[in-house]
C-alpha cells in the first residue's frame, strides 16, 4: 500500500472563521439534532399523563437500574475525553484503550436498554399499549439508535487506527465523534430527568 500523504481539501486553505469545515458542520448538525430530539421530547410531554390504560411510568420504571445505565453512559463521556486528550498528545496506544472503553461502555448502555425494553414488554408495555408506550419507545428508541451509530463510529475509528498513520486530520475526526458522543449523552440526561425521574415522582 502506498502511503499518500494528503492534506484534506479543507486544510489546504485557511477557513474564514478559523474553524475547520468539518467541525463547523458537526456543530450545525447537532443544532439540527436538537430540533429532532426537541420534537420527540415535546411529543412525550404533550402526551404525558394522557394514557387511557396502564401500565404507567411508575408501574414499570426501575430508577436504580436506569441510574446505573445512566452512570455507565456518563462515564463513557469521560473516557471519550481521555481518548481525545491522548490523540491530541499523539499517544496512539493510550488513545486506543480509551476509545475502545468508550465504545464498550456505550454498548453496555445499549445492553441495559435492550434488557429494559424486554422487561417492559413482559410487564405488558409495548408501543401499541398506550400513549406512554408509544412515546416512550419512540423517544428512547431513537436515542438508542443514536448511541448505536456512535458505537459503530467509535469502533470504526478504533479499527482504522491500526491500518493507517494518524495525522492531524484524524485527530479532528476524533474531535467530531467526541462532540457527537457528548451530545447524545446530554440528550440522555434530559430524557432521564424528564421521562424517568419526573415520571416516577408525578406518578405519570
Amino acid at each position, binding site marked *: *500500500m*502506498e502511503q*499518500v500523504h*494528503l492534506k*484534506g*481539501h*479543507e486544510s*489546504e*486553505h485557511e*477557513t*474564514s*472563521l478559523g*474553524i475547520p*469545515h468539518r467541525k*463547523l*458542520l458537526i456543530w*450545525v*448538525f447537532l*443544532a*439540527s*439534532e436538537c*430540533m*429532532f430530539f426537541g*420534537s*420527540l421530547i415535546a*411529543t412525550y410531554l*404533550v*402526551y404525558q399523563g*394522557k*394514557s*387511557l390504560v396502564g401500565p404507567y411510568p411508575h408501574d414499570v420504571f426501575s430508577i436504580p437500574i436506569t441510574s446505573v445505565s445512566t452512570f455507565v453512559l456518563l462515564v463513557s463521556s469521560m473516557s471519550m475525553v481521555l481518548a481525545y486528550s491522548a490523540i491530541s498528545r499523539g499517544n496512539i496506544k493510550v488513545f486506543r484503550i480509551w476509545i475502545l472503553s468508550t465504545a464498550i461502555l456505550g454498548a453496555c448502555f445499549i445492553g441495559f436498554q435492550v434488557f429494559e425494553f424486554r422487561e417492559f414488554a413482559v410487564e405488558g408495555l409495548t*408501543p*401499541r399499549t*398506550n*400513549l406512554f*408506550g*408509544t*412515546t416512550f419507545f*419512540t423517544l428512547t428508541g*431513537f436515542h438508542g439508535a443514536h448511541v448505536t451509530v456512535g458505537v459503530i463510529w467509535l469502533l*470504526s475509528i478504533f479499527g482504522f487506527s491500526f491500518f493507517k498513520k494518524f495525522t492531524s486530520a484524524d485527530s479532528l475526526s476524533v474531535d467530531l465523534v467526541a462532540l457527537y458522543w457528548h451530545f447524545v449523552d446530554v440528550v440522555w440526561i434530559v430524557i432521564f430527568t424528564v421521562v424517568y425521574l419526573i415520571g416516577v415522582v408525578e406518578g405519570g
Partner: protein
Amino acid sequence: MTTLGNIINGVTRRPTGEYGIWSWLTTIDHKRIGILYGVTAFVFFLFGGTEAYIMRLQLSQSNLSLVSPELYNQLFTMHGTTMVFLVVMPFAAAFFNFVIPLMIGARDVAFPRLNAFSYWTFLGGGILLNSSWILGGAPNAGWFGYANITSLEFNSGNGIDFWIVGLVLLGTASIAAGLNFIVTILNLRAPGMTLMRMPVFVWMTLVTSFLIVLAFPVITVALIELFMDRSFGTNYFTPEKGGDPLLWQHLFWLFGHPEVYILILPAMGIVSEVLPTFSRKPLFGYSSIVLAGIAIGFMGWGVWSHHMFTVGLEAAANSFFSIATMLIAIPTGIKIFNWICTIWGGAFRPTTSALFAIGFLSLFIIGGLSGVMHAVPTSDYQQQDTYFVVAHLHYVLFGGAIMAVLSGVYYWFPKMTGKLLNETLGKINFWLIFIGMNVGFFPMHFLGMWGMPRRVYTYDAGMGFDALNLLSTIGVTILAIAIMIFIYNVFKSLRDGEVAGNDPWDGRTLEWSISSPPPHYNFATIPVVNSRDAFWESKYGTNAPIEGVSVDSADENENGHGIHMPSPSYYPLIASLGQVVMGYGFIFNYALAVIGGLITVAAVYAWSLEPATEPDHDE
C-alpha cells in the same frame, strides 16, 4: 503490488472523465450540480403544472367529470407537494449551488461530495414520490396531510406511505444541503469578504439554510410518528387511544411556516441582486434588508398556529399568533420599500430579468396583503379552506417565488451557459406569464369570498362560480403557453443565442469577473474583496481593484493547471441509491430496507476512506 492491489484499484478506480454520462453521474462540481438541480426542478415543474392544469380543466365548468373525486384528491396533493418540495426548493438549490461559491470567491462548496449526495437523494425522493402514481395510487390527503385522514383506518392504500418516505428523503437531501451551504458561506469567503460585505443573495441563502436545518427535523419527527402509527400500530394520532390529531397540525406547521420562508427568502435574495444591477445603483438600505431577512428567519418560528385559527385554540393563543403574524409584515415591508427605493432614481434598464423582478415585487405585495388579511382570526374564519387562501398562496408562491426564479434564470443563464437568453422572446414570456398569472389567480379571491371551498372536485351550476372559474382556467392556459415559449427560448438561445461574454449586465458581484461559463476551478486567483459590490468597485469605484492573492501555488499558473480540485466520486450516488432502496423497503418489504441500509453503510465507509482530492500523479 501488482496482483491484488491493482485489481482492487482497477475495480474501484475513481472516475476521471470530463464528458459523457458518467462525468455527470459522478460530478461533484457545484456548477454542474446546480444545473442538474435546475433542470430536474424544471421537469418536476412540468409535472406539477400538468397536475394543476388537469384540475383547472375539471373546474372550468360546473359538474364536469373529467377526473374522479379520488383522482382529484391525488392531483391536488401531488401538485402541492411537488411544487413545494420538488420545484421551488430545488430551484433555489440550483441557484445556491451555481451562484454562491462564485459570489463569495470560492472554488467549490465546503463538502463537494455531500453536495452531490444532496442532489441524488433529492432526485431519488422525487422519483419515489412520483412513482406512487403507478404503484398503487398517489398520496391523497393534501400537501399538509392532516391527521387522521392519513391514518390506516381511513386511508388504506400506500399513497400516504410514499408521501412519508418521499418527504423524509427530500428532508435528508435538504438538511445535507443546508449544512453544506452554512459551512460554505461561513467558512469559504474570499479574503476581505466580511459578513456585511456579502451579497444579499448569499445572506438570504444563509438564513434559508439555517431554517432548513432547524425546521426539517420537526417534520421528520411528525412523519416518523405517522409512519409508526400506520406501520406498527402506535397511537400518536388515534383518538380512541387518547391520541390527539391536533399534534400533527402543530408539528407540521411548526415546520411548515419556516418552510414558507425557506421558499420565499431565496426569491428575495435573487431580486436583491437583480434590481440594483438593472438600476445601476447600489442596493438601497443593504443593512436593513439583511437584518429584515434575519428577523423574518427568527419570527417565522412564532407564527405557525395562524394556519390553525379555526381548530379552536384559546382566544389568547389566537391573539398571540395573530399579532406575531402581523409583525412579520414589518420586516417584509422594509424589504419592499428598500427595493422600490433601489429602483427610484436609478438608470433602470427593463431587461426581461428586471421585468420579472418588478413582477415579483408587485405580485408579492398583493399576496402579502391578503396574507395580512387572514392574519386576523375573525377574518380568517371566513377565508379558511376557501379559494381566497388558494389565491393568496399562489400570489406569494407563483407571483413571488416562481417570478423571482425566472428573473434569476434570465439573469444568470448567460453565466451558466455563455449564451444570453433571447430578450424579445423573454419579454413575450414575461408579459404572458404576468397576464396569465393574474387572469388565472385573481378571480380566486372573489370565488373564495363567495364561498367556493378549496379541494372539492366540482361545484353545482347556479352557485355563481362558473364564469370566474372559466376565466381562471383561461388564465392558466396562457401560463402554459408562456412556459412553452420559455422552453423554446432556452433551446433556441442555447443553439444560436448571443454570446454573453464575462459581464453582460455590467454586474456588481464577483461571479461576473470570470468567464461565462466559468472554468471548473472558478477563480484562477482567489480575489481579495475590499468593499460591498466588489466587482463594481473594481470597475468604477475609488477603492483599489480586486487583487490576486497567494492562496496556493496556483497563482503563478493562470490557466489553472496547478489547482487541486476535488475529484469526482461514485459514492454519493451509491449512498443516495441505498437510501432510495431503503425507502422503497419501508413501503413494501423490510428486507429490502435492510439491503438499502447496507448499501448506504458500505457507500459511507468507502466515501470516508476515499481522499477528497486525488494526488496529481497517482503513481
